């Protein structure tokens, strides 16, 4: 049993009749319920729910305050390498794109670490493209060991690993895992991943669960918005999070909602996801799964990010560079995608305080 079996039972559902039949009365009932069903979640994603966005936001705010308080955890990504063997149409790292490729040496990793640590951040997320030849698990493990000298929490957003490999990196000090499914629709998934190991839909889908079985502390999942109808993708994401939360109660589950940004390739998002859509998606997830953490990246603009804080965002990236060596090295690489919030850590810290929230630099420690 894995989430794939759950996905198989819902993938052919026709959501639209349910959306069309959602009434104002349904919405009022849902907004006053404490525990929401899957049908309620689906209705919160309907066009009718757009009329109730403010009420949903008020409830999401109250729930977030109750469970997380007025705090926002800050972290930053560190790109270790951008070599990749996959051909994902939406990503600069696509093996066929002509970009400057780079991989950090261990000493360069420490240089980057020192530069990031000097901003006060204690949480870091390491990223690579998918290339087992240049960035094998042993390289990741050594990198993590170096980084643990500077950071309390090291998260990982790399290619999917086997369960045994997850065990190895967790033992080395990795405490959180981010794996975006990119698109839950299996057919679209196949169409946008032209070649490479990432074509294996199920192997990627089951990656978070393999890490959960090895007692990782937290797992972050999400779709890449723009590849499919966002309403469907958010429904699948919510179901995936609920599945993991129920089966692995000791793992913190969080969700990110990245939207496709300009990159080195020519692919453009086929499905528009505007700001209001993103807010509706966020509210629906928050009401359906109140304890799930929501992460918002620098793919979004500064004002928009700041305004999302009271709606339930509990984790934000800050001082971001999507280049390999972009924090300290003179010659970085090409970036993975364009960021929209170029503010440094201090600026974001003050923006959070201005919103009446506490920027949290450290929320984890190795023990």
């Amino acid at each position, binding site marked *: 049993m894995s989430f794939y079996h759950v996905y198989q039972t819902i993938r052919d559902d026709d959501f639209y009749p349910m959306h069309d039949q959602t009434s104002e009365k349904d919405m009022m009932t849902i907004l006053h319920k404490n525990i929401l069903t899957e049908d309620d979640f689906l209705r919160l994603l309907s066009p009718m729910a757009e009329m109730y966005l403010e009420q949903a936001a008020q409830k999401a705010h109250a729930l977030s305050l109750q469970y997380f308080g*007025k705090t926002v955890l800050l972290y930053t990504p560190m790109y270790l390498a951008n070599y990749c063997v996959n051909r994902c149409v939406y990503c600069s790292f696509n093996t066929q794109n002509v970009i400057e490729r780079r991989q950090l040496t261990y000493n360069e990793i420490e240089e980057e670490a020192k530069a990031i640590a000097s901003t006060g951040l204690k949480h870091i997320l390491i990223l690579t493209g998918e290339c087992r030849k240049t960035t094998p698990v042993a390289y990741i493990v050594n990198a993590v060991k170096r980084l643990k000298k500077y950071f309390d929490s090291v998260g990982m957003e790399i290619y999917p690993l086997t369960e045994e490999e997850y065990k190895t990196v967790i033992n080395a000090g990795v405490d959180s895992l981010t794996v975006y499914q990119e698109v839950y629709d299996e057919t679209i998934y196949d169409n946008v991943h032209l070649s490479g190991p990432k074509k294996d839909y199920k192997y990627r889908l089951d990656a978070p669960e393999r890490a959960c079985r090895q007692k990782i502390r937290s797992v972050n999942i999400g779709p890449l918005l723009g590849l499919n109808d966002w309403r469907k993708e958010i429904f699948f994401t919510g179901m995936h999070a609920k599945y993991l939360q129920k089966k692995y109660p000791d793992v913190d589950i969080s969700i990110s909602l990245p939207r496709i940004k300009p990159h080195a390739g020519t692919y453009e998002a086929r499905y528009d996801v505007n700001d209001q859509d993103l807010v509706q998606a966020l509210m629906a997830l928050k009401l359906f799964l109140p304890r799930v953490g929501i992460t918002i990246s620098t793919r979004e603009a500064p004002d928009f990010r700041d305004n999302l804080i009271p709606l339930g965002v509990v984790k934000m990236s800050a001082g971001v560079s999507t280049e390999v060596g972009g924090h300290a090295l003179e010659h970085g690489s090409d970036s993975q995608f364009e960021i929209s919030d170029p503010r440094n850590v201090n600026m974001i810290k003050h923006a959070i305080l201005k919103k009446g929230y506490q920027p949290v630099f450290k929320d984890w420690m190795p023990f």
Partner: protein
Amino acid sequence: MNQLVIGGKTLQSRLLIGTGKFPDKKIVPEVVEASGTQVVTMALRRVDLDSKEDNLLDYIPKHCTLLPNTSGARNADEAVRIARLARTMGCGNWVKIEVISDNKYLLPDNMETVRATEILAKEGFVVLPYMNPDLMSAKRLVDAGAATVMPLGAPIGTNRGIRTKELIQIIIEEIDIPVVVDAGIGRPSEAAEAMEMGADAVLVNTAIATANSPVHMGKAFHLAVQAGRLAYEAQLGRQSTYGNASSPLTGFLYEGVNS
């Protein structure tokens, strides 16, 4: 009023407060003052000794007893490691045991909590364990050397009040070490209710930290805890199914009967 003694320390205040969820760490000293608390708990995982300006410890007034908690521990071994780290970091020898492996409801694991308590009490820690309100677990915690037991009123952060009232009442009646109601208390009136029941103290975080004015809410809890304790010590009148008039109209019939 009777005094509250925990780990050999006499406390004038029966309100313990938490430091999570505040909009700004800088507000903590004001809240401490308004609430009158002498014991402040904090998640060790949030303490950043390297930070020049963001070290939570700097915001906790020196007169308070630090109560580092083991938030994040999923089993006894992790809780023990965190407690030892806290002591090494100079946070004293008081520790609140939180062993939680259920991230949805944040309910504590009593068995692992007893195990951690046993190990740490033997090492000289003053152990305050957060627990599901179960009498037999409470007895085991006492045997393990706990300084208090801290049953939950409702899941952490829910502000739902004392939903486990009957079970906490049993623990209060049967356990001879201080009983601190921890988690679930959302209103000052609920803190007063816990104190009226005979709880020795309450621990409050979310209700104060997420109030529009945490300072005023801290003061409100301070007063409520005092009122509740005073009521308990004054001994509440008995409850009755039927109304009992304060000035009976037929009292004259019995005047002189027993004289």
